[in-house]
């Protein structure tokens, strides 16, 4: 839960900065095109900032699925998940060997 809200907050902050509006006025169900008025070029620019913020590279074929703010949040979470669970797996073996001793 903590990871989710941190990602949500960073994405909303990036959106708010790009659109120059208050982030509290941006709903996660908002469509990038129809509610936030982003054309395809503006969407590309926004996602460029998201890529930078989260050190991601979004392939062309994934762009189609990013229709709402919620889609973007969900996508970033999914992309970051493998890295998060890899970090967990790396920590555990060290702990186990300590308890055995």
């Amino acid at each position, binding site marked *: 839960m903590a990871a989710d809200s941190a990602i949500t907050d960073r994405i909303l902050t990036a959106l708010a900065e790009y659109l120059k509006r208050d982030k509290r006025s941006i709903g996660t169900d908002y469509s990038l095109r129809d509610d936030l008025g982003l054309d*395809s*070029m503006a969407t*590309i620019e926004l996602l*460029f900032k998201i890529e930078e913020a989260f050190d991601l590279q979004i*392939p*062309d*074929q994934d*762009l189609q699925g990013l229709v709402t703010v919620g889609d973007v949040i969900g996508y970033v979470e999914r992309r970051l998940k493998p890295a998060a669970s890899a970090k967990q797996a790396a920590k555990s073996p060290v702990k186990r060997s300590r308890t055995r001793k």
Partner: protein
Amino acid sequence: MTQRVVITGLGVVSPIGIGIGQFWKSALEGRSGVSAIESFDPFPIDGYRSRVAGQVRHFDPAQFLAPTQAERVDRYAQFALVAAKEAMADSGLRMEMERPHRVGVIVGAGMGGMVMGEREITQLYQQRKPHRVHPNFIPVITLNSASGIVAMHFGAKGPNLTISTACSSSAHAVGQALNCIRNSQADVVITVGADASITPLVFAGFCSLRALSTRFNDRPASASRPFDRNRDGFVMGEGAGALILESLSHAKKRKARMYAEVAGYAATSEAYHMVIPREDGMEVATTIRLALKDAGMTPAQVDYVNAHATATPIGDAVEIKAIKDVFKSRANRLLINATKSLIGHTLGAAGAIGTIVSALAIETGQIHPTINYDDPDPACALPGISKSVQERRIRVALMNAFGFGSNNAAVVLKKLSR
């Protein structure tokens, strides 16, 4: 009195051949000039989303140009000069018989001297030695280097212009050459389109715009798919096309062979968006109508359209919408093809190469295939688009070119009656 204008010479440097003979043979065979980019030394190609381009292979400047010419201009200008030399030889014009101030040069170029440009910029920022910037840097990157070198080579002292409107640059070069001769500012205009900017930064820029095809990196020849349901963006290309435009009276006097008449031209802006066209196609339709009006033609008289058709999801559909709006039911009887399916999008060269293809279509009655048109997109499908060569007597051809910066051009060519 307004002069009529004809095309008397053609020349080309392209991903499917250097020289009109090889180019046209390859085009009719439906040969793709799109291939994998090996690397952008020192950057590995897998750092790029798109990895294919219409590249001109086996171009050795030393084979075509004197060392002083080759070294002092960038790749795009080398292409321009080679194409111009072929076109001038093809036309049979002899400069010693011409008044030099009556022979002009108009070049269309989108990106210009980016090969040397990127190299010098990189070097300066890495090494921080301003004294080591090459003395040729400015002459090479200045966007009129091609029109300069072409004029110098031929001793052409007439109007010398470079037009840069991105993807429509050399369509406007043709149009402005037409105007120049119509208004008697010149008898002859060496008209060229050229670009060679498949370079690390420019290519990365187009990748970042999400404008390029990325789904066919393992099958380069399939990547450029205008009008196809599975198209996913354009393929960058490089090359040059050159045409000798001449007044009809001047061409007749020297008994020149004439490919076609340049009958009309329109230049407009959508005043809408830097990279996105108006989706209803109405602005493109206006450009086409204005070009036909300038040519004194009606839609009913047009036989063939050399489409802009870059294979972007939106652009192709917009162009067909516009064609349907202008031509109504005749749209179903037009022959239409997309040269970019063969060679990719050559940016500043596209308008000139499209006009060359249109002139050859009028001369030969042959329309080259639109390759990769495997699964027609219903939004783009018209009966006259085909994966095979088509044959018909072409009396009137329309050539479209639409550029970033909300810029549209259309050129109309007409067969000369014997």
